[in-house]
Structure formats: C-alpha cells, structure tokens
C-alpha cells in the first residue's frame, strides 16, 4: 500500500488505523445508545409538578386552595408493608394506615380535635341505663355494589369478639348480645355501662366488613369506603381506585398508588426525582428537601408513645426509689431531639393528645441530681437494656443519661421477631427496655402486659371511668388512672411521637392527626393549581 505521497505504508499501521476508527465508532455508538435509553424513556410517569414555583412561595398551606382537577393520582411512598391485610388476626399498624377509613370504614370516627362523630352509624341512642346502644346505619354500599345492612355489622362484631387479637376483641369483652333490629339498626347490649365502648367503634373494632368476607381480608379487603382495594403486588405496592358508588362525599383523587420503600433516603430520592408525590419520612430524611419550595413537610399527631419499661418481675426493680431515680435521670427533651428528630411533644402518661384523659402533667421531672442520689442509695451499678435494633438511638440516650448518674447500661440489641419473643412473649426476659406503640393505659391493666405490674387501684379507676355517668367524668377518671400508673414508674413515658410526611407543596387536605386509628386519610387530599 502507498500513501498519498506515494510512499509505502505498512499494512500493519493501516490495519491499526482501521481498528482505531472502528473502536472509536463503537464507543460513539454505545454512548449514543446509552443516552438514547436514558432520554427517550421519558420522565417519570404520573402527575408530579415539574415546574419549580418562584422562590418565596408560602410554606404553609392555606385552608382551601383551588383544586387541580386534572391531577387525580396520588403516588404515596410508605415504609412498612403488612404481610397480609387481615386486621382481625393482626394489630399491625401498617394495615390500618392504608385501609382505615379509605377502604374500610368505622361506625364512628373522631374529628381532628378528638370528638366522636357519626360515620357508618349516622346516629345512636343509649338505653337501659347505658347498657344498650342502638346504632342507625347509613345507606351505604360495599365496593362490590352490594348494600351494607345490619347483618354485616352483626357479622363484623361477632368476628371481632372471637378474635385472638386482644386489641380488637377487648372492645367486646363487656358485650353480652349483638342483634339486628332491622336492616338498618343494630342493638348492642352490654353487661354493664361502658363509656369506652363507643370510642372503640371509632377504631378497628368498629370496622364494617361484608358478611362472609373475613376469609378474603388477607389479600382483598373490601369495605364501604371511598377507595376500593384494586391490586396488590407484594413487595412493590398497591393501588386504590376511587369507588364511584360511595355513599358520602366522593374524594377528588381517583387513584392512590402506594409504593413500599423501606429505606427513607430512597423514598425522599424518589420524591425529589418526581416519581412520588407524598412520602412517609423520618426526621433524618428531611434535610435534602428543607428549603426547597417544591416540597413541604406536614406533621401530624399520632397515638404513638415512646417509653422506657421496667420488668416488674425483676427483684432489682422492686424498689420504688430506684424506679423514681430512673424516671428522673432521663430528659424527655433529649429523646424528642435525639431520637424523634424534634417530631414529638413531651408526654408523661399512657394517654395520647386527643384521647379522653390526656394530661401533660408529670409525676417526675428531669432531675439528674436527685436521680444520682436515689440510684446511689439503691446501690445499683449496672442494668441491662434489651431493645429492638431499630431503637438504637433511644438506647444511646438512655445509656448516656444513666452513665451520668452512675449506672452502667449493658445493651442487648435484638431483631424484631426475637424481641417479640423475649420481651413481649409468655416469659419476658429483660430488665429495662425502650419501646413505642399506640397502646394506651388499658393495655397495662392486670396482669400488666409485658411489664407484669398489676396495679389494682388503676384498674378500679379505669372500671369506674368506663361506667361513669358523663364523658367529663370518664375523662377525669382515666386521667387519674394514667397518673396513678405513671407514679409507679414501671413505664416511664417520654413523648408523644409525631409523624412527618413530605410531599409536593401543591397538595392540600392532609389531616393534622391520625388518632386513634393510625389511618393515613386520603379522602380529603387533592392537588391544587397554585404552587404546582
């Protein structure tokens, strides 16, 4: 071969040149394909806002802004998927959060300020000195179109009475008879008057399911709510579609797509990338979106209470001065700041804000000097703290606080199933533990649940509250019961946890509370035209 000047060109060099050209072309082609795959797949599907609003947009949502009727799909990121949807067998909060009030409705519901309001029971009357409740039902239909009747309510209540899930069956402990008076009236007869019975009808114990449908709850829960449970892909998410035959005010949203994403950072990233509109968030997840006018954080009150529990069967902890010392050693503000990331309010009793009997009075306040003295008197140098590994921040706060007052904490982290068995099982094996939960004071009635402390005086106060003649007396006596128990310091409550959700600032209608059902209420949520 020769070049243009006629000089011979080595064949090897010519081959090398051609190979370099081919390689360059291949690299260019691959790069082009990669960019094409990235670009031509399109942006995220759905209806997230893609235009950033002007800086300085108000961060508080006005009471009601114009609704954007073109955006009717809400893409919601949640962290915990239940193994199934059978709320009768399991008291998993993850079930109630999604289906509560959205898919399956209760007979009564609580307003944002804690008052009982009608829902499926449009009215009720009491009789026989408070031993009988007669509930008149709405003209509602289930999501398969069949009418809801008193037979469905009787069926539902019978299922809950027989359930091995104590959270739901305890509501019916005092019930002697449930009967359908006619198609739209149900009569419940109690062994004795009970103020708590009506309140229970605003919880899962008041859910109404279709007669005969209990067996299908696991995979296809159905109720009278404004959203039908359309599809569920385990490990991925589920879809709720608006039920157009809903008896009440139809929601603006037509579809809710729930995605289960366990990692908080992943949820926030998908929110920021425009794949989701609203996500559950922990305090640690929020910094990337703070200050970004496209997003807003909403906080709401929950029934979740954070506390330190002591094993009453452990002889070391029988000394009330020791328990008082432990109660005074730990600053609730440290828990709210260090564990809850600021998402909480101080609380000292096992009754949440918004529930009858709530008080913000405390038997003991943070007093490390007094705590040090009491613990030194008790002569305790080391205590064991068993906890779920997710609660390591709480364990950090407890360990360092007790170290300040001269007590070394031996930490025993456990994964959830092991913890459930060792601490909440038949033979609790722990000394101290940190936990949180929505259970209120009633869960600690004798024999005292996993703490094992039976306070008969408290039980008497709760019984008196239940049969009290007025709601005011009911609340007052429950408060006394909760304070009575708090004084013993077997359960030292620190805070009422708040939950944060982060989402598009174009959303409105997110309720400020999820007490008592732990539901996340999609019914009133809509997208607005302003701030999109």
């Amino acid at each position, binding site marked *: 071969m020769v070049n243009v000047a006629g000089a011979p060109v080595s064949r*090897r060099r010519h081959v*090398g040149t051609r190979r370099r050209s081919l390689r360059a072309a291949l690299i260019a082609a691959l790069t082009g394909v990669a960019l094409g795959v*990235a670009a031509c797949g399109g942006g995220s599907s759905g209806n997230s806002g893609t235009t950033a609003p002007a800086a300085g947009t108000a961060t508080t949502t006005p009471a009601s802004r114009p609704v954007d009727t073109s955006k009717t799909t809400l893409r919601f990121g949640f962290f915990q998927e239940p193994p199934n949807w059978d709320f009768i067998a*399991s008291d998993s909060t993850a079930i109630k959060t999604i289906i509560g009030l959205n898919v399956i409705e209760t007979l009564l519901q609580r307003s944002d300020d804690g008052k009982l309001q009608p829902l499926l029971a449009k009215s009720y009357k009491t009789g026989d000195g408070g031993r009988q409740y007669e509930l008149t039902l709405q003209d509602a239909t289930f999501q398969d179109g069949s009418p809801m009747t008193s037979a469905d309510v009787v069926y539902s209540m019978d299922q809950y009475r027989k359930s091995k*899930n104590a959270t739901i069956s305890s509501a019916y402990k005092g019930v002697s008879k449930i009967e359908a008076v006619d198609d739209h009236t149900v009569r419940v007869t109690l062994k004795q008057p009970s103020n708590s019975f009506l309140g229970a009808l605003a919880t899962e114990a008041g859910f109404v399911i279709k007669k005969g449908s209990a067996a299908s709850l696991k995979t296809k829960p159905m109720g009278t709510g404004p959203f039908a449970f359309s599809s569920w892909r*385990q*490990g991925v998410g589920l879809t709720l579609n608006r039920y157009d035959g809903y008896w009440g005010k139809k929601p603006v949203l037509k579809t809710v797509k729930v995605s289960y994403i366990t990692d908080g950072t992943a949820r926030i990233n998908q929110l920021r990338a425009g794949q989701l509109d609203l996500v559950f968030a922990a305090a640690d997840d929020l910094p990337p979106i703070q200050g970004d006018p496209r997003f807003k954080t909403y906080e709401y009150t929950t029934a979740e209470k954070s506390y330190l529990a002591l094993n009453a069967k452990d002889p070391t902890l029988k000394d009330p001065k020791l328990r008082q010392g432990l109660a005074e050693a730990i600053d609730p503000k440290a828990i709210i700041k260090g564990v809850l990331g600021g998402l909480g309010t101080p609380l000292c009793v096992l009754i949440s804000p918004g529930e009858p009997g709530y008080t913000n009075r405390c038997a003991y306040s943070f007093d490390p000097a007094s705590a040090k003295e009491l613990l030194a008197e008790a002569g305790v140098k080391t205590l064991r703290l068993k906890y779920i590994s997710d609660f390591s921040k709480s364990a950090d706060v407890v360990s360092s606080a007790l170290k300040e007052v001269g007590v070394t904490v031996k930490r025993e982290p456990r*994964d959830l199933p092991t913890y*459930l068995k060792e601490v909440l099982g038949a033979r609790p094996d722990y000394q101290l533990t940190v936990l949180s939960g929505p*259970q209120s004071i009633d869960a600690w009635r004798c024999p005292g649940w996993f703490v094992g402390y039976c306070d008969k005086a408290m039980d008497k106060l709760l019984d008196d509250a239940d049969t009290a003649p007025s709601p005011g007396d009911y609340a007052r006596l429950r408060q006394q019961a909760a304070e009575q128990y708090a004084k013993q310091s077997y359960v030292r409550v620190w805070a009422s946890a708040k939950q944060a959700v982060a989402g598009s600032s174009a959303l409105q209608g997110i309720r400020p509370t999820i007490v008592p059902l732990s539901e996340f209420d999609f019914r009133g949520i809509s997208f607005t035209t302003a701030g999109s």
Partner: protein
Amino acid sequence: MTRVVLRALGTLLLSAFLGSILLFVGMRIIGGDVANVMLGKSATPAALSEVRRQLGLDDPWTTQYWDWISGFLRGDLGQSYASGYDVASEIARRLLVTVPLALIAMVVATVIALITGTAAALNASNRRGAVIDAVSQIGIAIPSFWLGVLLVGLVSVRWRLLPAGGFVSWGASPLEALRSLVLPAIALMVPLAAVQTRYVRSSMLAVLDEDYIRTARARGHTMRSAALVHGLRNASIPIVTVAGLQLGSLLAGTVIVEVVFGLPGLGQLLVTAVNGREVIVVQSVGLVLLVIVLLLNFCTDLLYAILDPRLRTRRGAEGPEAPA
C-alpha cells in the same frame, strides 16, 4: 471429561443437601417465629400457640424438614404463612428482576475488566498502567450502596435522566424495565469490574512472559495484538472461575442495592422473609439460590475443562511432570 462431569455433579448434590440442612436449622435457632410477627405486640400466649399449631411449627424438626424438602423436590416450594402467596411463583417473578440485574452487571463488568486489565498489563511499567491500577483500587474500595446513593442524587434527582428507584415490569414496558436497572447495575458493576481488572492484569502479565507470545512478536505482531490474539484466551481461564463465583454471590448480594433502589428482587424477598421469620420462604429461596450458585460452579468447572484441554485428562490435571 466424564470423570470431571461426575465429580462436579457429586459435589453439587452433596453441597445442596448439606446446605438445605444448614438453612433449615439456621432459621430455627435465630429466635422468634412467624406467629410473633403475624400477631404483633398484643399477641396472647394462647393465640401464639394456636397459630403455631395451625402452621405446624410445633411439629418435630424431622417432620418439618421432610415436609419441606419432599415438597421442594416435587416443585412445590411452599406458601408464605403470613401472606399465603406461592413461593415458587414469587421467586420466579423476582428472578425477573435479580437475574437481569446481576447478568447486566456481570457482563459489563467482565467486558470492562478484560479491556482495562489487558491495558494495565500491557502498560505495567508506565504511568498509564499505574493510573489503571489506582482507579481499580478505588473501585474495589467503593461500597455499592454508597455508589448507588451518589448515582441517584446526580443522575435521577439532579439530572432526571433515570428513575431513582422502583421497577416497571418487563411486560408493561421493556424499555422502562431496562431504565430501572441501569443505575443499580452500575452500582454493582463498578466494584466487580475493579476486582476482575486485577485478576485479568495478573493473569495477562503471566501470559505475556510465555514463549508463544515471544514467538508471535518475532513473527511481526505488536505486543498488543500478540496479547489479544494469542494471550487473551489463556489469560481468561482464571477469569471464568472468578466471574462464575462472583455471579453466584451477586444473585444473593444484590439485596443492598435492591433496598436502595426499591427493586422487588430476590434479595429483598429474602430479607423481608428473614425479618418476618417466614421459615418456608427463607428455606426455599435460600435453597434455590444455593442450587443456582452450585450450578454456576458446575458450569464453571466444565467450562474450565473445555478452555484448558489439560484438565480433561487425569495426567493433564496432575501437571506436566506426572508419569505417563
């Protein structure tokens, strides 16, 4: 060759049996059970006993093992206690996420490693080789999940080029499914490619010292073309072993990346099942993964024997000094 096949098969079957025992016993000694998880915090001892009885959790271990393994051998991998889904169907669905993810990561990593490892070997005594070495060291040190988070922050959130997570099924949109796997595959591929680069480099350096490379040079080949044309096949023998082992561990090890990207893969299923003490799901998924890894090792052994004829005979396997 028959000897090689029979030996590999025997190892596979024995390993699978021992692995099944380990899985079965392991899930029973870690504490807690699915009844606790299903019934939650408020479960009464009576309720827990009843659920355990219904699920057969209080049967003797030998009965439980036989029920499980005999069903497995018949193709019935059991059902989830809590949710009731069929384990075999669920595994099949999740393999459609995990296998493509692992394969894409492995294939791309191997191709990159062959290129960069060869380049590193050819430039072992100059700056270019040193740069490749340094970059591969960094690649080995980078954790996959950290890289994943970084990629999401840049590519998904800032540039909005690819999804931040989730998975669109192949049936709904193959293109979107592929887009869902790009970033996770890159997160997995980088440390893999870095490790393999080191292997290719070492292997190629050894090959470049061989007589036949010198002969090829004498016949007019450049060092590069001698390496690629004559040396690469021999240098790739150890890579086959490494890639086979890595693919097996990739299938089970995608779990962290699946969590970061919210992918409904096999790793995520395994973690959820362990946390929920779903013994049947963990055992069946674990055994499926174990069998896949063993099969990959089996294929690697066969491929090894195909690539290197010396391994097909007993004399060849024992080495050049072995008596005739």
